[in-house]
């Protein structure tokens, strides 16, 4: 087991290096100079050169890459071109906000997904299955930015039950602040619910089709113990997908955050793109992607811990 963990960690390193290269390349192959946005069009070449030097854009690309990577590894992500504030703390704060959405959405989505998937599998081809299957397929096909709009429509515009934008002021009592969470979390939970629900249904059906549940029933086990055995077999692929989906929730929240004006990492990314704020862009994508890689690593290790056959 330990050997497996070490091997996976070693495999993750070149991937992380590759990720950093891709991030750097993506951002620096952007046509157009970021400096142009900040300076008036008639700025003299001397001023332009000075600005470039201040941000380090005048050095060769690979030096820029190594410098950036070196600093990033020690936590220093530089200064935002737009706000001239350090990127690190701003990114950390934004990530925290996104986590406030991602974790409840994950719990909600996975919980409903597993429930719907199990219902579907155990009532295969009868009406509960059909209903649950429609719900999960709808979840997977849902454009969450539209869902956000509809949900805002229903709960804020037509009925004024819940606030439509933002996080709420920091000095509000917790109950009130939670009201701001409800709509974004509900919206975000749809897709994981659908994805997990479909996978649970397929996996459990496949396991029920094997011989051993019948053998267990013949041995005299009642329904709940059999369910436990089935779940233990179904767990690895479902866990893997849950990890993946959590990663998507963290890294892919940009659309929902835009609609709800939630100050999370997605929103930060959105603004950085339009402002061509390179340090923020690089830092955000790097951190989100690295999170994703580490998350996959954890999921692989967890899977191998459950199912020894996976520890090649």
């Amino acid at each position, binding site marked *: 087991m330990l050997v497996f963990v*070490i*091997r996976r960690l*070693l495999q993750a390193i070149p991937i992380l290096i590759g990720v950093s290269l891709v991030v750097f390349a993506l951002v620096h192959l952007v046509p157009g100079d970021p400096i142009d946005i900040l300076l008036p069009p008639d700025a003299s070449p001397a001023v332009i050169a000075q600005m470039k030097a201040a941000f380090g854009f005048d050095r060769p690309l690979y030096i820029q890459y190594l410098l950036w990577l070196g600093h990033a590894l020690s936590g220093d992500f530089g200064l935002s071109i737009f706000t001239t504030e350090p990127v690190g703390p701003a990114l950390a704060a934004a990530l925290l906000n996104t986590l406030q959405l991602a974790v409840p959405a994950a719990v909600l989505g996975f919980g409903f997904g597993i429930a719907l998937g199990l219902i579907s599998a155990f009532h295969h081809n009868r009406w509960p299955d059909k209903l649950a299957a429609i719900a999960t397929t709808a979840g997977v096909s849902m454009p969450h930015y539209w869902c956000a709009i509809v949900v805002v429509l229903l709960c804020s515009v037509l009925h004024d039950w819940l606030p439509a934008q933002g996080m709420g002021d920091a000095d509000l009592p917790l109950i009130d602040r939670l009201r701001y969470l409800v709509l974004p979390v509900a919206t975000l939970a749809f897709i994981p619910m659908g994805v997990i629900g479909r996978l649970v249904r397929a996996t459990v059906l496949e396991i029920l089709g094997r011989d051993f549940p019948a053998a267990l029933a013949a041995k005299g086990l009642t329904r709940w113990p059999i369910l436990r055995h089935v779940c233990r077999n179904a767990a690895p692929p479902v866990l893997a997908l849950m990890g993946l989906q959590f990663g998507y929730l963290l890294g892919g929240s940009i659309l929902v955050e835009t609609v709800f004006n939630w100050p999370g990492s997605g929103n930060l990314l959105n603004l950085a793109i339009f402002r061509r704020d390179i340090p923020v862009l690089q830092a955000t994508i790097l951190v989100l992607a690295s999170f994703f890689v580490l998350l996959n690593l954890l999921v692989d290790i967890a899977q191998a811990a459950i199912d020894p056959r996976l520890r090649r």
Partner: protein
Amino acid sequence: MSDAPALLRVEGLTKHFPVHGGPLNRRVATVRAVDDVSLAVAAGETLGIVGESGCGKSTTARLLMRLIEPDRGRLLFDGREVGAAGGIDVTTLRRQMQMVFQDSYASLNPRMTILGSIAYAPRMHGLAARAADARAEALLDRVGLEPRQFARRYPHELSGGQRQRVNIARALALQPRLVILDEAVSALDKSVAAQVLNLLADLKQQFNLTYLFISHDLNVVEYISDRVLVMYLGQVVETGPVAAIYGRPRHPYTRALLASKPTLDPDRRTISLPLTGDPPNPIDPPSGCRFRTRCGFADAVCAARTPPLAAPLGHPPDAHLVACHVPAAQQQAIHGH
């Protein structure tokens, strides 16, 4: 047997598979699947290869067909070396030598009609579509499947025996001279297997074929072979004419193998276990003679030196050769027969 030159000569065929492990996935061990195997098959004869599972029979077959690349060894077909300058290349070899696999269902493309599967190789080698189809239909007829009924069908609609007939027809489509049959009837019911074996005998006569018949079933090998080769843990331990091997086995392993054949004859009941222990791991075979850990006659010399097969290629083709340090007389004295 006549002095006909060998159709197929194999010298020193060796294949080791690496086993990877550890955090850096390095090679940690080696599976010595086939070790220094030499044999010769004369034109027109059937050479049977027997042994337990894992003794390297199937790997040898795949090495002969060059589906796996050998680590060492020479292969000569009709006197010409495969892969050497001035010899023949692998593609040409494959037109002369074909193989029938054990799993009749997996051997056929589920998305291709029977006719398509048989006609595939000739078409790819340049035969016109119509001519290839005609040849395929003729072969179908020859193996006992009526073309009008079977040509347009798919593998899943046929029974095991019928599928194996298709596989045989497919092997014959390129008009080879030698056919390797790798456990070709092992997965079939006994009655069906008997039909297929008789078909194989007929085809051999009609098309002047040479067979290499690999099986773990001793009865089948005895029925169909002219000469037999016994393998153990990647090496050849005994070879000779079928009557000699089955009647007067000289290697302790062969004796044990034959003694463990279940028989309905009350006079030949098995009283004591002829073979003890599990076959050792091909990753870490015993030093010297590989059989010595299960052998009733093992001596000190058996651990020290690997017994040679007494230069199999120098002797006449039907010589009875054995790789054992302990002479037959001594074995007889110990065992009583």
